[in-house]
């Protein structure tokens, strides 16, 4: 550790902070990874659910803490993510704010740079994705832009590691006293002046910027100002009311247009556009993904190779066989069981550790050998697709169908993620804009979306019986649409709306995919692993006390109603602890020849629809509250059995699958 570093970090006892801000899809995360190396921790921002990555880096002997904020379009937040992004901007008192923009859309993104400068934040502008811009014939005069803006400006193509050195140099040599200011039209300036003159308290952002945000009806900041100004507040509020009334027709638009005008002036002589002929291949491919005639077959191909072959075949097949069959069954289990038998004299403890539902034999083995490979391969596939920019295209493709079920295209991301882990997906429903959409998505995830672990087992189970897989898929799609339609009709609330920026299709970068996958798996492990242990402890306690038997007995009449053998009751009870436990229970019954094809299909459908696992239920309860989550639990359970009963009758009556 050098002397210099010690002195610098010692000033206030904490490292300096760098904030990365900017629109979605401009390469913030790539820059974050490049600056911090692999040592990323992703955490939820305090008091919210939105993920924020934190990492450390050292530049020329100075230690910095780097924060990657969620994408935002402007300082005036609309979505939950943007709100968090701004909160970080206002609260962290950053030493450097790196505003990352997409060079191709500089005209559109520069207004936010203005807002950052206006707010008095120590901003460095990173004009990123220069390589793709140059390929389109756009060239930039960076030094001139720097001179006009009055802040450091760096041109970069971070994915190609271009400009990283310059960014580091700019961070270290940053002189925060540099300030430029931009004037708006005189009438607007007059209103801003009027408000700033009234404000006396001390704020983290410049009063001018605060005034503009207040004029745009920023409720949060209004509350903040109310809090800080105390006696002064009524005067401010009165002035504000007058201004907003005077400008009721077009205030927001006026401000946006003023910024656009300023940016146009700033960009004069900066961008040189050369004519380019021909369209890049990525654009043709992009068209294919968005045209329903080619987009749907493409989607099916992605599902087949990504989900069925890679996750189902490779993850749930090859890797699980290796870990479960090879590592655990042959090497670890015998050794651990033998060790416990010799060392531990008490029956109950032996049962707890290595018994039928033992922590090791069930909990750990299950988590590591079965679930981890399946979920891991799923996250690899998911991160690959995410990094390529395919999801927004999928969202626009399914928007119309999703509208029917009360959601909008945006909801594909939580729904697709649900095929990996419904618990994680339930958390991600936060990105949906209205409470109504969040409840519907939570319900559908709990009901009709099997998670990858469950999917893996069920696919294996049903592929042995011709036609069963088809009936199962048909049932699930039918229920998904039917319940979605029904809840869209019954749930009060606004019609969802859909808007989304479609980023260009890109070749996924292995490094990014790896970091995203590892981050997700880390989360999964930390959140879910303890639940495996708890589940095996509960099952163990249930077995010892006889409660498990009692529950199984209680469920038997229901099983008979569905035409299922009474042994399946146990599988259903397990299903609550882990969705896939239940499916695995069926697997045992199937291999011992206890289930006919009809029974197998009915059991698989019912089990898939049946209650979410404990983890998902707990998250549901945390996210949606007791009332909604209990409601969902009860209706899902009832529905699962009702569908099972009806399906059994139907299959028997039509003689299908016999």
């Amino acid at each position: 550790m050098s002397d210099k570093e010690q002195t610098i970090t010692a000033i206030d006892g904490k490292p300096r902070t760098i904030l990365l801000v900017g629109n979605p899809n401009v390469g913030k995360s790539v820059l974050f990874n490049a600056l911090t190396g692999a040592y990323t921790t992703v955490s939820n921002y305090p008091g919210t659910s939105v993920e924020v990555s934190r990492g450390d880096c050292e530049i020329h002997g100075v230690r910095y803490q780097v924060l990657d904020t969620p994408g935002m379009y402007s300082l005036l937040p609309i979505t939950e993510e943007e709100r968090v992004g701004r909160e970080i901007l206002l609260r962290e008192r950053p030493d450097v704010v790196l505003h990352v923009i997409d060079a191709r859309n500089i005209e559109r993104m520069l207004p936010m740079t203005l807002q950052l400068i206006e707010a008095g934040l120590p901003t460095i502008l990173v004009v990123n994705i220069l390589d793709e811009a140059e390929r389109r014939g756009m060239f930039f005069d960076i030094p001139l832009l720097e001179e006009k803006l009055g802040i450091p400006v760096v041109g970069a193509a971070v994915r190609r590691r271009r400009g990283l050195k310059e960014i580091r140099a700019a961070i270290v040599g940053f002189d925060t006293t540099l300030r430029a200011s931009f004037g708006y039209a005189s009438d607007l300036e007059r209103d801003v002046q009027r408000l700033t003159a009234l404000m006396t308290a001390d704020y983290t952002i410049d009063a001018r910027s605060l005034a503009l945000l207040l004029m745009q009806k920023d409720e949060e900041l209004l509350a903040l100002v109310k809090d800080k100004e105390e006696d002064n507040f009524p005067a401010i509020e009165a002035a504000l009311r007058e201004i907003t009334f005077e400008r009721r027709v077009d205030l927001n638009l006026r401000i946006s247009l003023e910024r656009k005008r300023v940016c146009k002036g700033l960009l004069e002589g900066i961008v040189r556009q050369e004519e380019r002929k021909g369209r890049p291949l990525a654009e043709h491919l992009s068209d294919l993904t968005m045209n329903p005639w080619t987009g749907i077959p493409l989607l099916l191909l992605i599902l087949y190779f990504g989900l069925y072959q890679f996750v189902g075949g490779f993850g749930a097949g090859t890797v699980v066989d290796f870990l479960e069959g090879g590592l655990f069954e042959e090497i670890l289990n015998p050794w651990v069981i033998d060790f416990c038998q010799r060392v531990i004299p008490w029956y109950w403890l032996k049962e707890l550790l290595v018994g039928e539902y033992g922590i090791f034999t069930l909990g750990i083995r299950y988590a590591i050998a079965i679930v981890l490979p399946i979920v891991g391969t799923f996250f690899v596939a998911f991160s690959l697709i995410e990094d390529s920019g395919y999801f927004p295209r999928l969202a626009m493709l399914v928007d119309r169908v999703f509208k029917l079920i009360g959601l909008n295209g945006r909801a594909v991301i939580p729904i697709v993620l649900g095929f990996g882990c419904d618990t994680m997906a339930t958390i991600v429903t936060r990105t949906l804009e209205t409470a109504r959409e969040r409840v519907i998505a939570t319900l559908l995830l709990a009901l009709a979306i099997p998670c990858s672990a469950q999917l893996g087992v069920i696919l294996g189970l049903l592929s042995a019986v011709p036609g069963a897989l088809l009936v199962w898929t048909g049932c699930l799609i039918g229920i998904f649409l039917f319940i979605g339609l029904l809840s869209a009709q019954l749930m009060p609330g606004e019609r969802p709306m859909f808007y989304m920026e479609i980023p260009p299709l890109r070749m996924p970068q292995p490094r990014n995919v790896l970091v995203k996958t590892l981050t997700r798996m880390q989360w999964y492990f930390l959140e879910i692993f303890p639940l495996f242990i708890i589940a095996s402890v509960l099952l163990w306690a249930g077995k010892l006390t006889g409660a498990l038997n009692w529950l199984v007995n209680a469920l038997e009449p229901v099983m008979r109603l569905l035409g299922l053998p009474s042994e399946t009751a146990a599988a259903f009870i397990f299903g609550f602890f882990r969705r896939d436990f239940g499916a695995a229970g069926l697997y045992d019954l199937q291999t011992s020849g206890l289930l006919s094809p009809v029974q197998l299909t009915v059991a698989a459908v019912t089990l898939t629809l049946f209650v979410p696992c404990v983890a998902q239920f707990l998250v549901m309860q945390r996210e949606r509250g007791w009332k909604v989550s209990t409601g969902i639990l009860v209706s899902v359970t009832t529905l699962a059995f009702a569908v099972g009963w009806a399906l059994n009758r139907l299959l028997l009556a039509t003689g299908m699958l016999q």
Partner: protein
Amino acid sequence: MKVSHKAEEILERLWIITEEGGDNAAHLEALSTTLDAEELLELQQMTYIEVKGERVYLRPEGREEARMTVRRHRLAERLLMDVLDYKGSGGNERACEFEHLLHHGVDTKLCTLLNHPTTCPHGKPIPPGTCCEEARATGETGVVALTELKPGETGEIAYLATGNEKKLQKLMGMGVLPGSELVLTRRFPSYIFKVGHSEFAVDEDLAKEIFVRRST
């Protein structure tokens, strides 16, 4: 010669039944009038209609007047429902009162303001006036909703007509601002358009609220 309000209502219904419904005449009951009603006599005197037994026929002399009455009613509906935001039957009732004010060129002005709409909010055709035909002949495109553009067409964003402030801010934040050039690339399953080098997808509801000046 000015037709009375009640007579206008009769002409309007008669037009709908005969011209749009395909019947050759309308029964008195369908017009909610009686043989000795004042307005019926008035119209007969003007030779706009002819009454045979219990059926009323629209004469060629009355066609233009009837057509324009229907036009005024539907323009009024457009104004009340789209611009003044009256919804449902309330809008319809007010349109019935409002239409009688649209004489002496007021209808032409309104039609131009509304950019020569071709259908009423219920989807029925608005008979075109001379102003519509002139606009068509001179190739005047005016300002239309994004939904009116064909894939490949370009336009300049004229204004955003959303009543929802959050939506408006979102669109503006993404760079969808009046004055920007826009290219529509796809209408189905969602509306896809480009502004500069960025591409956006919006649903039909939102596309209806983005108004563009078609480039020619």
